[in-house]
C-alpha cells in the first residue's frame, strides 16, 4: 500500500518514517492516513480555530473534547456541538444525513449528557436533483432523530446552485448532564479494560474520513457509496440508554464515541487525551461477518459503537446493565502506562505506534499574525449589483416565494419537535426555547448560516453569521452562554478557497470577541468542491443561551389592534448579499460589513428589553429582511389582524432597501400605545436607534405608505410555496 492510497502526501509519509524510525506496515499506514486526514486532524484549519475566543465564565469544556460544555446553573451543564456530514449526504442522502444525526448525538453522549435537542442546517442547489437530495436528507434526519427520540427544534435551509454537487448537511445537537455525571475521554487509567459497546463491526464506512470527506468530488463518484455508513437509530437508542446509565452509575472511567475513522480515532484520542497507551486484541472485536482484516477493523466506520474504559471490578455491573437491551459489550483490550498503541490479532502484533504521533504530531498549517491580520482587510468589490428597483407589490411576493425565504414547515413537520416534552417554542420560531425539568432556568437555541453574505466577503459573512444567531437569542431575552461553529469550504490547497475559509473564521472570531461569547467547539468540512468549483464559504453558527424563565418567552408577533411596531437598530440602506439582491442580480453582491460595536450594544439592549415589562413581542429580522419578517409575524398572528406601515424613506428604491436588507442585529418590536415612550427611551439611552414602523389594524391586510397593499392570504400563499415549486 502506498501513502496516496490512504490520502497522505509523500512529505507526510516521510515524516511518519522519521517518527517511527522505520517504514510503517499497511495497518500502521492506514492509522496515520485516517488520523492525519483533513477530516480528523483539521490540519488546514486548526491554526485558525485556535484563535477563536473560547473562554468565558460559563465554559466548563472548551474546544478539543467531543463537544463543548457550558454551565446552565449550579446543577446542570449543557454539551453542544455542530458537525457536518456533507460528502456522504451527496453520495447517499438518506443514510448520509441519518448517520450525521447519529454521529453528533454520540459526541454529546460521550460527554455524559443526554441529548435534548437537534438542529439541522442544510444547503442545496436549485436544480431538480437538488430537491430530490433535500427530500432524502430530510427523510434521513427525521428517520434517525424521530426514532431515537430527540426533538429537532430548530434549523435552517438555503439554496444556491453552487451547492448542487456539494450539498451541506450540518447537524447540531445539545445535551444536558448533571455536574456529577461529568465524563470525557481524558480520564482513562492504566489497568482499566477497554470495552466496546454496541454494533458489530462491519465493512461500512472504511475510508470515510480519509478518502470521502477529505478530498474533492469529481463527477460520477458512485464508487464512493461503500464509504458511506448505515445508521440504525434503534441500536443508537439502546446504546444511548446503556452508556448514560453506565456514566450515571460511575462505571465509565473514560468515554469516547466511535465516529470518523472508527476504532482508530477512538482509541488514539482516548489515549492521547488521557496520556496513556493501550493494547487492543482485534480478534475480540465482534464482527458482522468473518474475515475482516486488522486494517478493516481499525478503519471501519460502523455506527452505534462506544468505547469505555472500565475498572475490571465493575465490568460485571456494566454487562448486567447492557443485558436487558441485548446490547453487545465486549472487552477488546486494556489501558496501559506510556503512550504506545499496540494492536494484536491472534497474539501477533499487527501494529505498534505511539498515540501521540497519531494525534499530537498530525501536520498543521501554521497561521502567523501577519496572515491573521490580513484576513480582515476590505475586499475589492468584484461587481456592483444591478440597480435597485422601486418597491412594488410583486417585489414582496417574489421575495417571499424565493426558496431561501419560504416557510420551512414542509421540512420541519417531518421532524418530531416535541418529544421529551420540553419544547416551549419549536421550529416555527426564530429561536427554540426549551424548559429544563428540575431547574427553573431554561434554554434558548438559535442557529444561523447566511452564506449569501459570505459569498463576496467571507469576513463580513463570518461576522454576520454570529450576529444573526445572537440576535435570535436576544429576541427571547436569553443570556448567551456559548457558540459552536460549523465551517464548510472548498479545497484548502487552493489559495482562494483557503483564504475564504480563513477570512470566514476571522469574521467569526472578531464578532464572538466583540459580543464576548465563547466558541466552545465546532467542526470543519473542507473539500466541498467538485470539478474545481467550490461552494460559498459557509459557516453555521449555533448559539446557546440561558433563560431565567422559559415558560413565558416573549411572543414573536402582535396580539391587538393599535399596538405599535418599531424597527430596532435599522441598518444603512444597502442590500448586498440579501435574498432579494441575489434573486434580482443572480449573483451575490458584497454585504455591508456590520458595525460590530453598534450591533453588540443593540444585542444587549434588546435582551434587556425582552425581559422588561411592557414588551409585547420581538422578532429578529430574518431571511428576506423586514418585509419577510413582517409576513412571518402575520402568519403567526391572528388572521383578522393587519398592519398599516409608514416608511421613513421617501424614494421607492430606498423603500425596497429598507424592506429587504438583511443586516443582522435588527429587530421588530411591538408595544402598546402606552409603552411607546418607555421603549424609545430604553433604546435611546443605550444609543440604539429605533424607527417607528406603524400600527396593528383590523383586517387581514398589509399596507405600506397608503399605497402598497397586500391581502394576508396572498402573502401567506406566496410564502408557503412548497420546495417542489420553482421560484418565480
Amino acid at each position, binding site marked *: 500500500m502506498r501513502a496516496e492510497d490512504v490520502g497522505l502526501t509523500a512529505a507526510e509519509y516521510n515524516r511518519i518514517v522519521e517518527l517511527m524510525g522505520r517504514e510503517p506496515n499497511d495497518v500502521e499506514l492506514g492509522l496515520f492516513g485516517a488520523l492525519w486526514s483533513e477530516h480528523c486532524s483539521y490540519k488546514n484549519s486548526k491554526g485558525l480555530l485556535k484563535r477563536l475566543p473560547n473562554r468565558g465564565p460559563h465554559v466548563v469544556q472548551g474546544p478539543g473534547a467531543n463537544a463543548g460544555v457550558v454551565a446552565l446553573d449550579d446543577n446542570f451543564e449543557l454539551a453542544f456541538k455542530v458537525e457536518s456530514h456533507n460528502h456522504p449526504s451527496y453520495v447517499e442522502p438518506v443514510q448520509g444525513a441519518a448517520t450525521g444525526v447519529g454521529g453528533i448525538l454520540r459526541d454529546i453522549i460521550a460527554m455524559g449528557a443526554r441529548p435534548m435537542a437537534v438542529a439541522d442546517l442544510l444547503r442545496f442547489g436549485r436544480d431538480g436533483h437538488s430537491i430530490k437530495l433535500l427530500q432524502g436528507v430530510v*427523510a434521513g434526519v*427525521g428517520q434517525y432523530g*424521530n*426514532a*431515537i*427520540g430527540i426533538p429537532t427544534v430548530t434549523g435552517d435551509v438555503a439554496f444556491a446552485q453552487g451547492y448542487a454537487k456539494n450539498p451541506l448537511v450540518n447537524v447540531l445537537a445539545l445535551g444536558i448532564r448533571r455536574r456529577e455525571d461529568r465524563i470525557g475521554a481524558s480520564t482513562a487509567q492504566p489497568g482499566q479494560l477497554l470495552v466496546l459497546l454496541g454494533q458489530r463491526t462491519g465493512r461500512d464506512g472504511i475510508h470515510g474520513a480519509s478518502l470521502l470527506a477529505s478530498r474533492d468530488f469529481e463527477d460520477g463518484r458512485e464508487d464512493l457509496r461503500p464509504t458511506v455508513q448505515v445508521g*440504525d*437509530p*434503534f*441500536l443508537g*437508542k*439502546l446504546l444511548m440508554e446503556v452508556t448514560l446509565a453506565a456514566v450515571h452509575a460511575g462505571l465509565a472511567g473514560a468515554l469516547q464515541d466511535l465516529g470518523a475513522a472508527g476504532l482508530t480515532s477512538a482509541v488514539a484520542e482516548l489515549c492521547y487525551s488521557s496520556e496513556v497507551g493501550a493494547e487492543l486484541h482485534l480478534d475480540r472485536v465482534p464482527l458482522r461477518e468473518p474475515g475482516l482484516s486488522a486494517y478493516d477493523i481499525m478503519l471501519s466506520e460502523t455506527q452505534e459503537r462506544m468505547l469505555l474504559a472500565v475498572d475490571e471490578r465493575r465490568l460485571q455491573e456494566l454487562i448486567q446493565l447492557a443485558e*436487558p*437491551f*441485548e446490547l453487545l459489550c465486549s472487552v477488546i483490550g486494556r489501558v496501559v502506562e506510556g503512550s504506545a498503541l499496540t494492536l494484536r490479532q491472534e497474539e501477533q502484533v499487527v501494529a505498534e505506534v505511539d498515540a501521540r504521533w497519531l494525534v499530537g504530531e498530525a501536520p498543521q498549517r501554521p497561521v502567523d499574525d501577519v496572515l491573521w491580520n490580513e484576513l480582515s482587510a476590505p475586499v475589492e468589490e468584484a461587481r456592483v449589483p444591478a440597480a435597485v428597483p422601486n418597491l412594488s407589490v410583486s417585489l414582496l411576493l417574489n421575495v417571499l416565494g424565493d426558496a431561501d425565504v419560504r416557510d420551512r414547515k414542509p421540512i*420541519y*413537520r*417531518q*421532524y*418530531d*419537535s*416535541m*418529544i*421529551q*416534552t420540553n*419544547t*416551549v417554542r419549536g421550529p416555527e420560531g426564530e429561536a427554540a426555547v426549551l*424548559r429544563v*425539568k428540575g431547574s427553573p432556568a431554561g434554554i434558548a437555541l438559535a442557529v444561523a448560516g447566511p452564506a449569501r453574505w459570505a459569498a463576496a466577503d467571507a469576513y463580513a459573512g463570518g461576522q454576520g453569521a454570529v450576529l444573526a444567531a445572537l440576535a435570535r437569542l436576544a429576541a427571547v431575552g436569553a443570556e448567551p452562554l456559548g457558540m459552536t461553529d460549523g465551517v464548510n469550504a472548498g479545497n484548502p490547497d487552493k489559495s482562494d478557497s483557503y483564504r475564504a475559509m480563513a477570512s470566514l473564521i476571522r469574521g467569526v472570531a472578531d464578532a464572538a470577541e466583540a459580543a464576548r461569547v465563547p466558541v466552545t467547539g465546532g467542526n470543519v468540512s473542507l473539500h466541498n468542491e467538485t470539478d474545481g468549483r467550490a461552494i460559498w464559504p459557509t459557516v453555521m453558527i449555533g448559539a446557546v443561551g440561558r433563560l431565567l424563565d422559559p*415558560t*413565558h418567552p416573549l411572543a414573536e408577533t402582535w396580539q391587538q389592534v393599535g399596538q405599535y411596531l418599531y424597527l430596532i437598530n435599522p441598518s444603512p440602506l444597502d442590500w448586498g448579499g440579501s435574498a432579494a439582491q441575489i434573486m434580482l442580480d443572480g449573483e451575490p453582491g458584497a454585504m455591508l460589513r456590520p458595525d460590530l460595536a453598534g450591533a453588540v450594544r443593540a444585542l444587549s439592549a434588546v435582551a434587556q428589553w425582552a425581559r422588561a415589562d411592557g414588551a409585547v413581542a420581538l422578532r429578529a429580522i430574518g431571511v428576506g429582511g423586514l418585509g419577510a419578517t413582517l409576513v412571518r409575524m402575520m402568519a403567526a398572528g391572528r388572521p383578522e389582524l393587519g398592519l398599516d406601515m409608514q416608511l421613513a424613506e421617501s424614494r421607492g428604491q430606498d423603500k425596497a432597501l429598507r424592506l429587504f436588507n438583511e443586516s443582522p442585529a435588527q429587530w421588530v418590536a411591538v408595544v402598546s400605545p402606552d409603552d411607546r415612550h418607555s421603549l424609545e427611551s430604553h433604546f435611546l439611552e443605550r444609543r440604539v436607534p429605533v424607527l417607528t414602523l406603524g400600527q396593528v389594524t383590523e383586517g387581514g391586510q398589509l399596507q405600506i405608505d397608503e399605497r402598497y397593499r397586500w391581502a394576508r392570504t396572498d402573502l401567506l400563499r406566496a410564502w408557503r410555496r412548497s420546495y417542489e415549486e420553482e421560484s418565480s
Partner: protein
Amino acid sequence: MSARIGVVTFPGSNCDHDTLWALEQLGVETTAMWYRAEDLDHVDGVVLPGGFSYGDYLRSGALAAQAPVLTALQAAVETRSLPVLGICNGFQILTEAGLLPGALRPNRHGEFRCDWHTVRVVEESRWFPGLAVGKALRLPIAHAEGSYYVPNGQLGALFQNGEAWLQYVDDAGRLSPMANPNGSVANLAGVQRGSVAALMPHPERAMEVFLGSDDGRQLLGAWVQGVSQEAIHAR
C-alpha cells in the same frame, strides 16, 4: 386512594419517560415496567407509550406485540378487565396484538408528520369519566404510520359498538377531510374495546399551556380517574 399505573418500556420506546412524567404531574403513583414483565398484579392500569419499539422494524408494533408483557396484558384484560391505554406506538402494538380492532398503516402522504391537531370525543367510556361526547382536545401527533384502517364493512360495527373513540376535526370542531393528517378511515384518531383504549396523538405532550396545550392533562386525568374508580370496585 389512588391507582397505581404501570408504563411499559420496550427496547426503542422513547416516550416512556415523558409518559411517566406526565402521570406524575397528575399525582398518580407510577411504576416503570419492562417488556419482559409477566406479573401485572401490582398495577391497576397499564400504559403502552409511544416510540419506536424494536426500531419499528418489520412493521410498527409487530415485534413488541410478541413480547412477554403482551401475553400478561392479554390475560389481565380478559380476566380482570385491566385498563390499558396505548399511545401512538402503543396503539400500533395493541392492534398488532389483537387487543384492538383494525390496523395502522403508513400515512397516506408517505411522510412522518409532527403537528398539532384537534380530536373530538365520539363515544363516552367509563374508563374516561368526564370526557363527554363532542369534547374537543388539542393534541400533538408525531407518527409515520398512523393511518387507521379497518376492512370494508367493519367501520359501521366500530361505530355501533362504541369502539370508535376519537376523530380528527378542524379548529371549529367539524369533521373534515382537511383535518385528517394521515388518511385514517373516518378520521379516526383513537379506538377502544372493553378496557383497552388507544390513540395516535400524544396527550403526555399536552400537559401545560406553555407547551402548546394542556388538553392532554384532561384526557390522562380522566383515564386516571376511571382507573381509580375501577380499582375501588375491584377491591
